[in-house]
């Protein structure tokens, strides 16, 4: 069901871990949903100079986090804000419909981190489209289906 790119990104993710002195940290999801993404940003001027992640979740969630951090490194904040989950999906060569929400989650984590940075700087957080916990149809991997 996954593309080779997703599997490659998942099995060898980049930018795993915390940034101790991060300028912004965003966390979305919950253990109940089976997905938590935490993104750490290092920001210099208006630019993202480092991005790292920690993720509890499925292969698509981990691959999306990894790909997202790779893509937003070096981006101006304004561009990173507009950065769309469709870009992540494209970069991964596609995601199964039931997994697209993982890429949305990654985008949301980036926005949450940017807002954290803004708040720390005394700026108003920007309005962020809230993401639902999960969506999409099943892909039938549960043993309940055996």
């Amino acid at each position, binding site marked *: 069901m*996954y593309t080779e790119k997703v*599997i490659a990104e*998942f*099995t060898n*993710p980049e930018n*795993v*871990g915390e940034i101790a002195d991060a300028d912004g940290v965003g*966390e979305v999801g919950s*253990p*109940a*949903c*089976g*997905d*938590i993404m*935490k993104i750490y940003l290092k920001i210099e001027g208006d630019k993202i100079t480092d991005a790292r992640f*920690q*993720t*509890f*979740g*499925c*292969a698509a*969630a*981990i691959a999306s986090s990894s790909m997202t951090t790779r893509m937003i490194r070096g981006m101006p904040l304004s561009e990173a804000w507009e950065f769309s989950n469709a870009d992540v999906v494209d970069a991964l060569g596609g995601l199964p419909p*039931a*997994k697209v*929400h993982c890429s949305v989650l990654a985008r949301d984590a980036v926005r949450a981190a940017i807002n954290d940075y803004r708040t720390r700087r005394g700026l108003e957080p920007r309005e962020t489209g809230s993401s639902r*916990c*999960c*969506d*999409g*149809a*099943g*892909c*039938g*991997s*549960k*043993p*309940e*289906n*055996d």
Partner: protein
Amino acid sequence: MNDQDQRPVYMDHAATTFMKPEILAAMAPYFSRYFGNPSSLYRFARESRKGVEGAREAVGAALGASTDEIFFTAGGSEADNWAIKGAALANRERGDHIVTSAIEHHAVLHTCEWLEKQGFSVTYLPVDEFGRVDPGDVGEAITDRTTLVSVMTANNEIGTIQPVAEIGKVAHDHGVLFHTDAVQAVGAVPIDVERMGIDLLSLSGHKFYGPKGTGALYIRRGTRIENLIHGGGQERGRRAGTENVPGIVGLGRAIELATADIEGHNRRIAAMRDRLVRGILGSIPDARLNGHPTERLVNNASFSFRYVEGESILLLLDARGICASTGSACSSGSLEPSHVLLATGLSHEEAHGSLRLTLGDANTAEDIDYVLEILPDAIGRLRRISPLTPAHARIPEVD
């Protein structure tokens, strides 16, 4: 082993099994040589009929049932649907209430939900932390409107074996029919429909090295049950459709092989399984074995690993050539992970971090060694990625 072109280390026998060569050999003549329709009158069709009736005897013998109480279906799901809808609808004037458990397979649960839409009411009994139904609860749930109790013989996710004979007795003491989904139990739990007080029993060929798309429903003589598939007079007028002769023959041979020496089989598999469980619990902190410590299918090793999610465990194992499954439903996009794991009291996080390894006849000691080598590393990698992992649960990198 981690080469994707090699035969994988298959530890998902609860999902399905390979077909044993002797079973395919038994089926082989019925595809193109003895292909006659068993309903046909001419001599040529006699071989087909004999094949079907021989299989019926084998299934009857395996269950302690008479030949005329065995009806072939296209699998476990059809058998479950037939048993539950058939018994509920046929006994509707007597009552409209069904008792089942919260951890049944969806073939039972979704069938019960359909009946609820038809005006029936259903009690879904809770289970304890090990996944066991309390027979006392069954008795308390039965009302004078109850016509059917359906509790599975053994669970497909966590392997827990139910006190079937006790539940059967409670049902019969109340004059209520008892159905059990024995799809996972055949070949591992010795079954005797008399001793266990079973009126209806579902089984499925592909769970014990037989063909996919084959199954059977045991119907105790005299049990009131409607047909599910209407049409021709096959299966003594109770299940229409031209018989899947090769499939039925394969099912018969498979159940013979699977029940010939259950004890010896269980001993062999349990030894591997126990080493697997001990090895995993010994090398991975914050791991638990799901299901019952002793009353469980010998081949089932179901775990929850905290701080990580099941699908990603499964895919890391897959990358190393190990086939396993998970009860996590992150993948399914629903809020709920496995209803079975939640019913045993696991938190959502624990339920999401589940992994099921189910052994089978082709597994070897080397397979166990290999999984014990690969799995801790996989959990370790995912825990290093997870924001939830506390320091004590980290697993050092090996290389």
